[in-house]
């Protein structure tokens, strides 16, 4: 935000801006030079901001009617669905909003993986993003507990029980988390408190995420550094604003379809049965967005190692900028990486699929192979690939591939070899 001089035209504006440079900030945000070749995979940052705000606004409204008590939570949710004006709408937006949020965040993460957005100089943006993702999972998990249905209760029991795998202090930690000797009212009230807190932590981290982004500027599909501002960039407003709006509207159509026509398809039927500590559901499954990690957890026979594997599967992402040794960012110029990228996508989808299935027979075998491959991708394939891969020549500027110019191919090749 320093490379930018802005002087308000009015006298008051100048007076105010000298004391609190909000106008400078606004000017920075509108003029922010953005690579002009960003494709639609780059619109999910804006979509995610929309998702976060939607969740906060609907969540606040729900919290006005929801009662965080083991005896009344389920009933208060039915009260919202039946008697609160448009309560059903607010709740369905909030419940499906969580799924939409994760859908968008997965696209956002996989976009970053494809175009190498996590690489230098954007490591901090990436790591903040991973922390946001972890907090999202915590918020979503605790939010799912609040309606106090069967899947809420048993999901909470299974997940909190994971901590008992910690040697020596495990059992004590679980009791401490529960606030008792089983998931009960104290667990519900603290989950509600944390579920209310976390979105605001996420909001703060999103500000840092965007701030850190605005230092080096956006990566782009070609993955090369662009001079800013230049022929290769456009100001954020109106170009990116209108494009993000268009993409957001398309996203909202999908969102609306879920909310209005299949509002319960992403949830589990058992969660419309009030929590009953004496009856265990036939299959305890988490929400779809946690299934890949659930599959990793269950594919390891030992409980403690399973928990470690599951956590590592997420935390390994934070080390990604250093595990990927390739200097070339975009997979467009990395023919081998591109193939491994799509294998990874398939691997994660397979993990998600087997995560929804009972952990037995063929499903368990597939889960184990897919888990092993997941780690192999990050720990072996990526480091080796970066050193061995023969990459394609990268262009000198964004304008070149867009205009289809090949005149500078020789220079581009030179540049590529100098990078390597």
């Amino acid at each position, binding site marked *: 935000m320093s490379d930018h001089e802005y002087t308000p035209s009015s006298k008051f504006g100048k007076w105010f801006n000298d004391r609190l440079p909000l106008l400078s900030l606004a000017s920075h945000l509108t003029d922010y030079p953005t690579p*002009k*070749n960003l*494709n*639609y*995979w780059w619109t999910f940052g804006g979509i995610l901001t929309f998702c976060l705000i939607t969740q906060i606004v609907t969540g606040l409204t729900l919290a006005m009617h929801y009662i965080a008590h083991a005896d009344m939570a389920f*009933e208060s949710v*039915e*009260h919202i*669905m*039946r008697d609160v004006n448009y309560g*059903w*709408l607010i709740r*369905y937006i909030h419940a499906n909003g969580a799924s939409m949020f994760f*859908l968008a965040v997965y*696209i956002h993460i996989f976009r970053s993986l494809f175009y190498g957005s996590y690489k230098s100089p954007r490591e901090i943006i990436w790591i903040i993003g991973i922390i946001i993702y972890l907090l999202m999972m915590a918020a979503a998990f605790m939010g799912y507990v609040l309606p106090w249905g069967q899947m809420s209760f048993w999901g909470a029991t299974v997940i909190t029980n994971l901590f008992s795998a910690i040697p020596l202090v495990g059992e004590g930690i679980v009791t401490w988390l529960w606030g008792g000797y089983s998931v009960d009212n104290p667990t519900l009230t603290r989950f509600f408190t944390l579920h209310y807190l976390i979105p605001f932590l996420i909001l703060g981290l999103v500000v840092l995420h965007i701030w850190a982004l605005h230092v080096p500027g956006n990566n782009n599909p070609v993955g090369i550094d662009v001079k800013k501002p230049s022929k290769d960039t*456009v100001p954020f407003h*109106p*170009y990116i604003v*209108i*494009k993000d*709006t*268009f993409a957001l*509207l*398309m996203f*909202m*159509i999908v969102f*609306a*379809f879920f*909310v*209005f*026509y299949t*509002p*319960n*398809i*992403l949830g*589990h*039927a*058992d969660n*419309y*049965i009030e929590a009953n500590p004496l009856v265990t559901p*036939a*299959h305890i*499954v988490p929400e*779809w967005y946690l*299934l890949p990690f659930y599959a990793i957890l269950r594919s390891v026979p030992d409980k403690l190692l399973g928990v470690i594997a599951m956590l590592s599967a997420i935390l390994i992402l934070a080390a990604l900028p250093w595990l990927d040794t390739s200097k070339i960012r975009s997979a467009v110029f990395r023919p081998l990486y591109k193939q491994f990228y799509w294998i990874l*996508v398939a691997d994660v*989808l397979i993990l*998600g*699929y087997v*995560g*929804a*299935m009972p952990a037995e027979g063929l499903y368990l075998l597939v889960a184990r192979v897919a888990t092993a491959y997941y780690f192999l991708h990050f720990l072996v394939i990526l480091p080796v690939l970066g050193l061995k891969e023969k990459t394609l020549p990268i262009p000198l500027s964004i304008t070149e591939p*867009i*205009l289809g110019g090949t005149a500078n191919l020789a220079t581009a090749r030179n540049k590529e070899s100098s990078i390597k």
Partner: protein
Amino acid sequence: MKNFLRILSLVIVFLAAPLNSYAAEKVEYLKTDWSFKGLFGKFDRGALQRGYQVYTEVCASCHSMKYLSYRNLAEKGGPEFTEQQAKAIAASFDVSDGPNADGEMFTRPGKLSDKFVMPYENVKAAQAANGGAYPPDMSVLVKARGGGVDYIYSLLQGYEDPPVGINLEEGVHYNKYMYGNKIKMSNPLSDGLIEYSDGTSATVEQMSKDVTTFLMWTAEPHLETRHQMGFKAIVYLIILTILVYFSMKRIWSRVETKV
């Protein structure tokens, strides 16, 4: 753009596969045409009123409906009994109220604002009267079962003699569609069991369909509003998207990049 949509739709299709697997049981349910499915789906008023009759004359002796009030029966989007009818229905139930000025509990006729009267005092009493099995509350029953309306509709018609080799304990019945095929509820419906006030012939199939429709409404009382609002919202979004698309094209025409 094209590429983007292609990949996105592929991923969504792939994601949809495990989601469907949530409906765990793979039994083929009986099918019927539900009027409330689809973009403009609405309840069949007649079916809802008949369904209420089946519920109240058959199911309600064991199954509670604790999230509904008698006023709901007269509300828009439901069975839409007239307010007079709903009042009469409410008044036909005895509601325990109190304490009065003397500190005594008393019984009075039901009012529109009362919740549906429970068949049993508490869960224990319900279990004691039903061989240890608790007849589930029916308010959200349709949403609480994997197969939804098709499951309930099939279950009501799924009573059969047990296949050879299956021994049932006392008070357990065989049902083709029940999870594990064993159900404590005896076959609740038989042809001509009740007499519909609108003269419809009360076959098991008819009663199953009517009461299931009624249960869909009790689980989703705002379904009609949801469908109507959803259609408007999506049409609005599509029009807005088209307008924004053209303004985007216009704005981006100033640079030589395609969007």
